[in-house]
Structure formats: C-alpha cells, structure tokens
C-alpha cells in the first residue's frame, strides 16, 4: 500500500443531547488505500456515523474530533466549506442505504445525476446528459434513456440503488463510501449491485468503504474488515480470515448466524461482555 487515500486517526463523534452526551464513535483509527474496506458491527455501533463524519455530514448536535482525518493529504477537519464541497461528491462519494429515501422524490433520476455532475464539472447540459446516460449504462441499467426520465418512485429498489450509485460515481470519485447499499434489496438483486461496485474498484482503482452488518457478505466481498462495537473498532482483520477472528464479539457474530451448512440448535448467542465497550 502506497500513500493512503484516507487516513483516520482517533475519530470521535459525540452528540450532546439533553439527556447527556452520546459518544457514537469513539476513537476510530484506520487507513485506506485503493481497496475494499468493510466495516461491520451491529445496529448502532457507529458504522454510519463513521462514514458520515468522513464526509463532514454529521447531523447538527453532533461534534466531530480526530487526531487526523485526511483525504489524499487534505485535512478534512480544517478544510474550508468550499474545499469540502468540491471534495464531497467530487472525489469522495457515498452511496446511501435506502434508495427509497435518498433520492429526491420530485426530481427525475436523470436530473439528479446531471446535477451531481454539474456541481463538479464545467459541462453543458448536453454533455452532462450524455455523461449521465453513460453512467446509467455503466451500472447495467437496461434502458438508460427511459430510466433517465423516471422519477424515483417509478423504479424498483434495485434500479434505484443502481441509479444512486450512478449518481455518486458520475464524478469519478477516488473514494466511495457505501453505507449498507444492499440491505434494502433482494438477495439476487443485491448480488448484481455488488458486482458493479466490485468492478469499479478493480477497474477504476477506487477506494471503497463498505458498511454492512452482514458478516457473510463482507467477508466474501471485501479485502479488509473493521469490526465495530459501541463506537470502537474492536478488531481489524483480513476479510478472508474472518472465520479466525480473535475478538469474542466477532466470533460471536459469526457463530450466531444459522447456516445451511450445519444445523446448530440452539444457535449460540452473544454474551456481551461490558469490557468490550470500554
């Protein structure tokens, strides 16, 4: 791995609420090259907040601190709003969990892609349109011209998710954060989506952060995996070695899934050790 694309050290996200302070992310540290990095963990463990903090999109009461948060040498914490804006969508993109909610319901898919493109590239509408169509084609949309003029509610979940990916990739970013991009999809459809992402990483040399709670999926798709628990990274390991995880949490997560392979009964469950959260 040469110079890392993304360098995160001791990232913390806090929410100051009436009832006290919630530390959603507590000292996450990792580096990312042009590879597939998976982040797994149960619900509420801080996966999404980590991803959003990188993009500077932590929602209002939240506060982000880090020893280091740099993208391609640019310090994201001190960068001006302007710089951030050009980075966002331009060089770093994020595919969000649910296409049903993350596409603007009153704009056509084409418009939204064009908008993303024009926000970063000086292009005429015609050029932007061609680019958008090409992008839709790239994500294996069957009839790009038709999808272009459809509204989000007129497409299925799988198509929506692909449109979302097209929108986020139209600017040819160096880093893509995919936050549970397949959890709303059918198994069969989600495989197609993953295939597209995979191609992009291998063919464009993009960095990918793949957030998911599906260990099986992450281990089969990613190169490296961060396992999060209560806002911390409890374990970092090669994806293919997930079976050999050392941390009891990771082990537990792996084991408690029923599999077709063997019939364990009762299924082992997680016995949370308070010490994990410390």
């Amino acid at each position, binding site marked *: 791995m040469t110079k890392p694309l993304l360098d995160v050290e001791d990232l913390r996200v806090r929410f100051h609420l009436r009832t006290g302070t919630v530390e959603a992310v507590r000292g996450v540290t990792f580096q990312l090259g042009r590879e597939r990095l998976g982040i797994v963990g*149960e*619900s509420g463990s801080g996966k999404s907040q980590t991803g959003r903090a990188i993009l500077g999109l932590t929602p209002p009461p939240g506060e982000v601190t880090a020893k280091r948060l740099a993208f391609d040498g640019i310090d994201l914490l001190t960068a001006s709003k302007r710089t951030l804006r050009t980075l966002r969508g331009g060089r770093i993109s994020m595919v969000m969990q649910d296409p049903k909610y993350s596409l603007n319901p009153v704009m056509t898919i084409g418009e939204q892609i064009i908008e993303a493109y024009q926000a970063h590239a000086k292009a005429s509408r015609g050029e932007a349109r061609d680019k958008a169509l090409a992008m839709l084609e790239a994500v294996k949309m069957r009839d790009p011209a038709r999808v272009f003029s459809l509204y989000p509610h007129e497409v299925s*979940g799988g198509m929506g998710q692909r449109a979302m990916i097209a929108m986020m990739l139209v600017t040819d970013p160096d880093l893509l954060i995919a936050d549970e991009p397949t959890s709303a*999809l*059918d*198994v*069969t*459809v*989600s*495989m197609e989506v*993953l*295939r597209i992402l*995979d191609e992009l990483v*291998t063919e464009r040399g993009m960095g990918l952060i793949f957030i998911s*709670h*599906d*260990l*099986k*999926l992450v*281990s*089969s*798709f990613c190169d490296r995996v961060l396992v999060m628990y209560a806002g911390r990274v409890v374990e970092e390991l090669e994806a*293919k070695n997930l*079976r050999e995880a050392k941390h009891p949490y990771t082990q*537990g*997560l792996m084991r*408690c*899934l*029923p*599999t*077709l*392979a*063997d*019939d364990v*009964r*009762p*299924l*082992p*469950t*997680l016995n949370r050790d308070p010490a994990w959260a410390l």
Partner: protein
Amino acid sequence: MLDIQNLQVVFGTGRLRVDAVKNVSFHVEPGEAYGLVGESGSGKSTVLRAICGLAPISGGRVLVDGKEVTTPRTKAFYRTVQMVFQDPYASLHPRHTVDRTLSEPLAIHGEKDAEARILQALREVGLGPSFRFRYPHQLSGGQRQRIAIARALILRPKVLLLDEPTSALDASVQAEILNLLDDLRRKMGLTYILVSHDLAVVAHLCERLLVMRHGEAVEETTSAALRSGAASNDYTQSLIQASQGFTRTTKPPLQSLAG
C-alpha cells in the same frame, strides 16, 4: 392443521389489478413448522395475511383444523391463529405500554386473571416484569419482537404465522429470537408458518418449505434437501447460491463458506 387450497389473492381492479397470490396450495400438519421463501414481492406476506383475514381471499379455500374459515373471521379463529409481523418497530402501538398491549387481547376475549397472564407471557418470551410499563420506544428491536410474540401467544393459539420475524434484527438478536421460537414450539406444540427471504433461517426453523416467485408456488421442498443443495428448480438454486455470500465471477467462488 392448516390447509391452503388454490389460494388466490387479487388487489384492486382494472389497471390497478395486482395478482398477488396465484393458485397457491400447501398443507401444514399440527406441530409442524412450514416455511415460505421467495424474493421481495413474491406474495409470501400476502399468503399469511389472507389466512388471517387481513387480505381478501379471491379464490380457493383456507381450512383451519379442517374447517373452512369465514369472512369476517370469528373470535374463535383468532384464538387459534395469531400472527407476528416483520417490523417490530411498526407492530406495537407507539402509545401503549407493554402492559396495555398485552392486556388488550385478554380484555377483548374477556379473559380474567390478566395480571398473572401478562407476567407469565413476559416470562415465556424471556423478559422480566421490569419491561411491563415500558413504551415501545424504550425497547430494542429484539425486545419488541419478543413482546409481539408474547402478544401473539397470550391467547394460547395453536398456529403462529410469522412474517419475517427476524429480518429487521441484528444477527445476534436474530439468533435469540430463533432460539425462542424453537423453544416455544416445542413447549407449546405450536404450528408455525414462517416467511423469510433468508434460506438459512427457514432451514433452521422449518421442516418443509415452499418457494414462491411472482405469486406462484415454484416448488415445495424440505430443509434437508436445501442443506444438501438439492433443488430441482433453477430459481431455488439461485436463491441458495445467493445466500452464500458474494461470488466474484473473475475469481473462483469462495468455497470455504459454502462448506
């Protein structure tokens, strides 16, 4: 116990007509757990909803305990058949405490001894009495799903219809719920129909299952057959494939996980 014969469900008319379930038949023995799998929109939930009267039966028959169900369903039917919904966040009344939620069926059916039955029901699903006065938003998803199961069980039904009871839950919580369901079935001699898109979950809980696609039954098979990877139907085969994780076409498939 349950006999579904040529079930048909149609929503809407004219241009808006949706044939959600087309001619589906299956039979469930008492004490058996039966699975329904298939992709999203294949009509799995609709079958369950048609059985308990939440969706119209447009054709075919539904027999419970040998008797054809009436529309609207009788109170006795509801004492026999109960359902647990997919989304634990949506299936509890947001303004009712657990206590209220659990006492409602008892009140409807004029059961006495509510206090004791509620505490017992909570115990059965592995929750302590401390949960009794909580509101749904004070519960985790897994806890909510337990409450939903407790509510379904408090009338001592014989049949439990489970609509993806774990798909909204974390893996670890899913394991807890699956264990619980397994336990309860054994203890109470319940009959299950389980809907899920996760083959592993269905295989874990059920003996037999029906694969559905586009509202039609594709094939009926057994868990054992699934485990051995023996599926006569291409579609079933592709489901089995997909459930084993991502496969890179360029690289050889990850055999290690398929076992």
